[in-house]
């Protein structure tokens, strides 16, 4: 740093130097944060969006929609499940290894956190289902795009 000179500085100049250091570090932190957020923020997709504009394979994203009826299957290891998430327009196969939330059932809303694999299967490392059963209305079975978005907004 400034070395021998600082003690010779007038108090006013020392204050300016300190202020400058603080500003440089804080602005640096802000720029770094903006850069990192553009790369690291996990974007939210509904099935029709993720099919139309595929995120990069190693990028963490979230996928929200309805678990299609009759699509849920447990694999032989007893802890991996496969199911299809749809929004009425597109369907995305999802695989998940772990303990599913209690309100995760076919025909209800879900948000999966994970990555889209190269083969188009979404590999989830976490599933979020809304805690309360009241949040899943019956009309959801034949929902429109707008309804799908509403469900998605509720389960997000």
């Amino acid at each position, binding site marked *: 740093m400034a070395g021998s000179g600082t003690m010779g500085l007038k108090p006013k100049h020392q204050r300016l130097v300190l202020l400058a*250091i603080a500003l440089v570090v804080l602005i640096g932190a802000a720029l*770094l*944060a*903006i850069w990192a957020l553009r790369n690291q*923020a996990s974007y939210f997709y509904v099935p029709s969006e993720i099919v139309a504009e595929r995120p990069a394979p190693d990028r963490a994203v*979230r996928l929200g929609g309805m678990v299609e009826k009759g699509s849920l299957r*447990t694999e032989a290891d007893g802890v991996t499940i496969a199911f299809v998430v749809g929004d009425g327009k597109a369907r995305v196969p999802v695989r998940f290894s772990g*303990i599913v939330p209690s309100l995760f059932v076919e025909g209800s809303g879900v948000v999966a956190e994970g990555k889209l694999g190269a083969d188009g299967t979404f590999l989830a490392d976490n599933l979020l289902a809304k805690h309360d*059963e009241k949040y899943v209305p019956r009309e959801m079975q034949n929902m429109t795009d707008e309804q799908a978005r509403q469900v998605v907004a509720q389960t997000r």
Partner: protein
Amino acid sequence: MIAEFGLAALWLAAALAALQLIAGALALTPRGAALAGVVRPVAVVQGLLALAAFGALILVFAETDLSVKLVAMNSHSMKPLIFKIAGAWGNHEGSMLLWVTVMGMAGGFVALVEKRLPEPTMLATLAGQAFVSLGFYAFLLIASNPFERLSPAPPEGNGLNPLLQDLGLAFHPPTLYLGYVGLSVAFSFAIGALVTRQVGPAFARAMRPWVLAAWIFLTVGITAGSYWAYYELGWGGWWFWDPVENASLMPWLAATALLHSCGVLAARNALRAWTVMLGVVAFSMSMIGTFLVRSGILTSVHAFAVDPERGSFILALLAINIGGALTLFGLRAATVTEGERFRPVSREGALVLNNVMLSAILGIVLFGTLYPLLAEAMGAKVSVGPPYFNPMSAIFFVPMLVVLAVGPLLRWRRDTFARVRKRLALPLLAVLAGIAIVLAIGDVAVLPFLGLVLAAGLAVASVLPLRDRNLRRTPLPVWGMVLAHFGIAVALFGMASESAFSVEKLVAVRTGETTRVGPWAIRLMAVEPVAGPNWTALEAQMLARYQDGRGTELRPQSRSFWTPPQQTSESALLTRWNGQLYAVLGGEATDGRWQLRLWWKPFVPMIWLGGLLIALGGVLALAGRTASDIRRLVARDKIAYRRTRQGR
């Protein structure tokens, strides 16, 4: 009756806060000097009335008075008494009442005991405290009345979120609130000092114990909250960078910076404007956290109020308080004279670096927490998680740790690296040994590697300030600093070890089968239904053996509550000196197998042990400072007494 009594007490407290504000402000003018004597007693009574209102709320919850809307919405007659009481603050209205209670009590306490500052500064401080309180009283009485009646009373209540029905969590919010709201005192002191232009060592010495106390509660609250998330959510993690966690971390970061800059101002009369600024920022972070959590714009277990009216009310309070304080700062900062000078290589220099780094981490966390809101305003739904927070905060945390190791060894005002070089040989040796050990163990990712190695160096460096000291005569605050810094090394070691060496296993097994995770062999003996006061559960009985030693029983549960209907998983923990075994029972898989999720987490309890050591360091420092303050006061009184006698 009790509810009406509580509401009346609340209105009276609000009226007294208004009186405190007006009397305090007028007493600062030459014509209102006669009002000066009113302010302190009013502050004390206001705090007691708020406490009475809070007591009334606890009473209606304890006896489950279902004609009170808040009780009907959030409680249930079948709940154990302790959770009925804790339910009083496990909801939006109750937690805001707790907020104003703590705020009123803190103001009253300051009014009662704080005699170190010139009286005008105290009057301005208490007026500032009343101003902030008044906003929150208005919020309670207008937008979230906790004592609202319900007619007719329902036959039964809705119950409390089962995740919150946990003994640790019952006392977690009050602890955190004591910290959040305790910082309001620092905020008011900053206002008082700005209004009366009395920024100096006396101001820092008066403010420091209050900041220290709030900081201790925050530290304990965050540590407890992290442990709660760890065992109650059943996800095996101890920090998720959830907005609510960030809301508690941000005031802690600001308070930590404030604590250290207070030290510089008290000892050396430097960093004057900066300390005042941090006093404003610390409580602003508490309020921003409250806004994020209480407005419902961020969804989470903690977000009780999904209500736009309340959200905008808190936002307005936020704008008035923070905007007002910053404006005052802008107007007065230029008249706060520059502090004493110091060289870059000095204790002050190290503390400046500590402050700047803490502020940078604070900025990183604040920005990451608000980013989803900004993005949503522009039409994109994003979430920000560990891939952003971990490396970004580490960039500033790592240099801060280096400064933390060196700084306490430096002298005030001016020093040279040559003088401390010899002393740093020992921590460097520890770092090198750490590098050798970790490399020998094998493949460890960059951040955990840095964490382990720096923890080793810091653990040694943190006790170095005790060298060449007579340990019996070492002042308590020095012990406190050493202990807190050592606690950071301990916690860091736990975090790094958890992240580097955890082993996870997810399997489906039949009863009687054995599975292995790390050094453990775990046999599933049986899965049976059990029942509690307001839940039923499936309970697994497992026999865990460490390196084929004697078996210990583990009983994780999958619980179903019926009011409200919800399932939680109660993990089972087995703690050894070198780590923790963590077991979660999942659902029933096909063909009679049960899903189990098991973790072996080496040295993970060090995280919370470290947190407690940090808080204990704070307690020692507070005890030492308070004792010497009291001694000084007593001595001053004696001198004054002798003078009056001699004068006669």
